[in-house]
């Protein structure tokens, strides 16, 4: 007999949280229930991990990470990004296509998913560009990308500003499936901006990006989505105004989903008063009122999902004046604890927002399944209450806003297709297949 028995945890089943054992066998969840007692007890010959006091749920799914491979491997690569993801409890990560070259055709997308499989820690799902080279001029190879498994289409980092082109992309993909995901920032309103436009930018004399830069694009996109019937996804929402637009459009029947990052749930533009570039990202950190609105939106479901926008940069790249620094913060390893601490949600709500909903948006049937016999064993075991402060990261980069921040909730084990991909008891990452240390 083989397999792993997760004994005595609080398990997120389709009928809610229940205390149960979970048997993992052959890459799948083989059984859920009281499995240890009696002569037929499932413990014999199996690895038993005592998870009493811990929560067992579907592995997290990140709709939005920059794994930097190919082209910027000094920041991150698919191996290090996969390790970071597994440590953060993720079993699937949608890799943004602003690689070098940008992921605008099928063979590039296949390279990324193949590398993810070789590393073997998480499912690395490539997103594809909407336009060739992310230049906003002509459509990328949408069919080719679709055939390579791409379901999330985005020029993330750049807004598809040309309304006609966006409409054609939506029309083209509407019948195919897949979702158009927009990085919403009006280029004219955002020009010359480095941070949120408000009293902090005024005090610092720094060019501002108004919240309006996001809302005007989202308003336009929702109108185009309504016309075309396409599925539309708003990436990394940063301001309260966008929530109102989404709520109104949804009630008109527009097919719209939205994500928020952990850092936008935590930090405001006051963070920039230090002029430390770790607080520089697009969209920018906005106001405390926006933080409240985003937390409420995530709680009540106007925002469907948490996405990390994990954006690693090498230390020397951020060790420059604010305006000259690249945009982005890391997030894979801190997302769960950040959301758990910010919202203090029921486990069911957290797993809905961090696993079930993002898996649905990205059409990932093998992920985001409430735990029952038969599902692929993409699971995470978390300690709901452990207090800790992030210090060390498995990502190649450490540009995290959460370094040193006291958080509650910690990932203990991650299982990808039944294989243990992260074990917090080890001070080193769980070995990856291509490191030669596993099996």
């Amino acid at each position, binding site marked *: 007999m083989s397999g792993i028995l997760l004994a005595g945890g609080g398990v997120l089943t389709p009928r809610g949280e229940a205390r149960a054992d979970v048997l993992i066998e052959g890459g799948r969840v083989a059984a859920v229930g009281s499995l240890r007692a009696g002569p037929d007890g499932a413990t014999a010959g199996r690895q038993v991990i005592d998870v009493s006091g811990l929560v067992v749920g579907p592995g997290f799914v990140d709709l939005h990470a920059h794994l930097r491979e190919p082209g910027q491997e000094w920041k991150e690569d698919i191996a290090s990004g996969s390790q970071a993801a597994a440590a953060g409890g993720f079993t699937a990560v949608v890799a943004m296509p602003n690689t070098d070259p940008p992921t605008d055709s099928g063979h590039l997308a296949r390279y990324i998913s193949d590398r993810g499989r070789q590393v073997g820690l998480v499912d690395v799902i490539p997103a594809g560009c909407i336009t060739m080279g992310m230049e906003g001029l002509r459509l990328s190879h949408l069919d080719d990308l679709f055939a390579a498994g791409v379901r999330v289409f985005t020029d993330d980092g750049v807004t598809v500003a040309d309304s006609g082109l966006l409409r054609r992309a939506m029309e083209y993909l509407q019948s195919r499936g897949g979702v158009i995901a927009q990085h919403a920032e009006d280029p004219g309103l955002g020009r010359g901006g480095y941070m949120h*436009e408000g009293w902090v930018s*005024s005090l*610092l004399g*720094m060019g501002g990006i108004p919240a309006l830069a996001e809302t005007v694009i989202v308003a336009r996109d929702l109108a185009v989505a309504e016309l075309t019937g396409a599925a539309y996804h708003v990436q990394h929402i940063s301001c309260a105004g966008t929530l109102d637009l989404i709520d109104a459009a949804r009630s008109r029947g527009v097919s719209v989903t939205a994500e928020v990052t952990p850092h936008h749930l935590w930090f405001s533009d006051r963070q920039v008063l230090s002029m430390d570039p770790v607080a520089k990202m697009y969209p920018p950190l906005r106001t405390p009122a926006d933080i409240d609105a985003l937390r409420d939106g995530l709680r009540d479901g106007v925002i469907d999902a948490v996405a990390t926008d994990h954006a690693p940069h090498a230390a020397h790249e951020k*060790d420059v*004046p*604010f305006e000259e620094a690249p945009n982005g913060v890391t997030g894979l390893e801190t997302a769960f604890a950040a959301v758990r601490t910010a919202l203090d949600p029921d486990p069911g709500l957290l797993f809905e927002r961090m696993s079930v909903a993002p898996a649905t948006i990205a059409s990932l049937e093998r992920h985001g399944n409430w735990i029952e016999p038969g599902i692929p064993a993409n699971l995470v075991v978390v300690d709901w209450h452990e207090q800790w402060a992030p210090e060390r990261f498995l990502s190649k980069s450490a540009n995290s806003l959460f370094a040193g921040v006291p958080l509650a909730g910690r990932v203990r084990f991650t299982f990808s297709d039944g294989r243990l991909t992260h074990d917090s008891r080890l001070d080193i990452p769980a070995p990856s297949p291509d490191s030669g240390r596993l099996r």
Partner: protein
Amino acid sequence: MNFLTTEGLPRNDLEEILDLADEFTKVLSRPIPRVPALQGKLVANLFFESSTRTRLSFERAARALSADVMSFSASGSSLSKGESLKDTALTIEAMGVDLMVVRHRATGAPWRIAGWTGCQVINAGDGAHQHPTQAMLDALTLRRRFGDLDGLRVAIVGDIRHSRVARSNVFALTALGARVVLVAPRTLQPVDREGWPVETTDDLDGVLDQVDAVYLLRIQIERGGASVFPSLPEYVSRYGMTRDRFARLPSDAVVLHPGPMNRGVEIDDMVAGHPRALILDQVTNGVAVRMAVLFRLLGGK
């Protein structure tokens, strides 16, 4: 200790600097205008953005205190070879520098350098953020003219939004008791002036007869007005210190300008040469103020 911003500086500190500057003004009027206060200290001027008056003023101030001075300007430096700001700062520190005077087009660059090095840092202008010694020399100029800044009414006119001179002066002058009104078209006003102890208006003519001093900011002609106001002639017609407007000021009101001036744009040629235009006094006072700041940071150590 550093000197990076006027924001939050208490009135006491500001007045101590001005008092010290008054003393150094006396030194500068001696036959041999030099004291040995900072003998053996090494000051590095790091100007990553072009400047003539500020760099020369700091050099003059440091030499009048008998400090050694090294000056660096961005063109012809290793920056053009791709060296980072951090490496440049560490390299210069390694030569035994005690204090760096930093100008940079990016907000916060002097703070970054202060964090990377063990040197003391004076901000000589960062982006559109702060230029604190400019505000101190402006305050000194007004104090020498009026005796006291308490209740003094000062209009700062022009591109407030992109001006480090305006930001530094807003906090320095108001801390010293002046009442400041910012005058600009809305596109040149700060977007959100929460926390600024000032009033704003877009009507210069409406405040002309109520001010003791008009501080004209340089319009960046190279910006061509593009997208912030329609044209230079339109700007002059509403915000230029023309002879007509100068005649409508109270009879003892003065005009200041941080330089370099665009004669015929923000300031009329005749006005610039008028005895109530204190522009060259500002330059002279700049040396004394910078001596005061250098002495406070490096003296007595």
